[in-house]
């Protein structure tokens, strides 16, 4: 945490742990403290990111238990790579890249040893069919407009713990890339550029994935949230 960094040259591209010039001051401080072995910094990063890391990992592996193990493996990789981290992307974007690599590798290993059926999500119940529908494109008066418009949602239902359970369950059924984007954007509130960095995708692609994911999660709530309204 040496205060006298002002005279330090920032042109260095060496792979030594020094070249963090591109990072925000907050990220740079975090990296410095981690490198120095500061436990409370480490724990605060865990606190902020652990749920998201597990949720992202679960896109590739068969269970939450395995995802927790993947996160541990990822942390080993993150800590070991820390001295080489050059700060070309924000710290957590870099962390998630490592995590996703670990999760992919673990998922590939599992696919070789676990019968495929065990990896399918147990989603026979509550297959959500659309509760709304559109008129056909050749409808003489209102092509593509609502045939059956969305019913009003009862606001108090969304405040219910059940809503969160449903959202969580639906997110767990999404394909990995949709799950990653909705987890980081909507749950964790990352900004779009950082998510693109972590996942190596374009802004446009990210919006497509986010939209699909949101559409499915809304859909999963639709029949239930409107239930009590006539």
């Amino acid at each position, binding site marked *: 945490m040496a205060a006298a960094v002002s005279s330090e040259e920032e042109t260095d591209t060496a792979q030594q742990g020094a070249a963090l010039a591109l990072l925000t001051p907050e990220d740079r401080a975090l990296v410095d403290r981690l490198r120095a*072995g500061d*436990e409370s910094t*480490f*724990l605060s990063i*865990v*606190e902020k990111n*652990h*749920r*998201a890391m597990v949720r992202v990992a679960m896109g590739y592996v068969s269970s939450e238990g395995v995802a*927790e193990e993947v*996160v*541990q493996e990822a*942390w*080993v990789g993150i*800590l*070991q790579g820390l*001295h080489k981290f050059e700060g070309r992307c924000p710290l957590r974007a870099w962390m998630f890249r490592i995590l996703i690599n670990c999760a992919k590798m673990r998922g590939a290993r599992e696919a070789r040893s676990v019968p495929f059926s065990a990896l399918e999500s147990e989603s026979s119940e509550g297959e959500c069919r659309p509760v*709304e529908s*559109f008129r056909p494109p050749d409808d003489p*008066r*209102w*092509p*593509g*407009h*609502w045939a059956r*418009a*969305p*019913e*009003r*949602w009862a*606001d108090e239902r*969304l405040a219910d713990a059940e*809503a*969160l359970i449903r*959202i*969580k369950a639906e*997110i767990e059924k999404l394909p990995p890339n949709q799950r990653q984007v*909705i987890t980081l954007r*909507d*749950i*964790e*509130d990352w900004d*779009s550029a950082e998510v693109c960095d972590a996942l190596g995708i374009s*802004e*446009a692609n990210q*919006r497509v994935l*986010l*939209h699909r994911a*949101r*559409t499915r*999660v*809304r859909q999963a*709530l*639709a029949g239930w*949230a409107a239930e009590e309204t006539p």
Partner: protein
Amino acid sequence: MSAARPQDLACRELVELLTDFLEGALDERTRTQVEQHLVLCPGCTEYLRQFRATIGSARKLAEEDLPPGVREGLLDVFRHWRHGS
């Protein structure tokens, strides 16, 4: 119901534009079309409200507690690394 003039967006198209709309990623003309459609169409207005409510509710998942033992397990990883490095 909204007025179905040919230059209007259909509801089916509008719901596909909502993330781009919320992200500010639509071109000026399309954004205006979406806004005008929403003014006239209670169905799409409700859909947008639900879309936003879904996003707002998803955010609450960030507040879940960590499972027991997670901090301790990871702290072990951290200490191990610190001693090894």
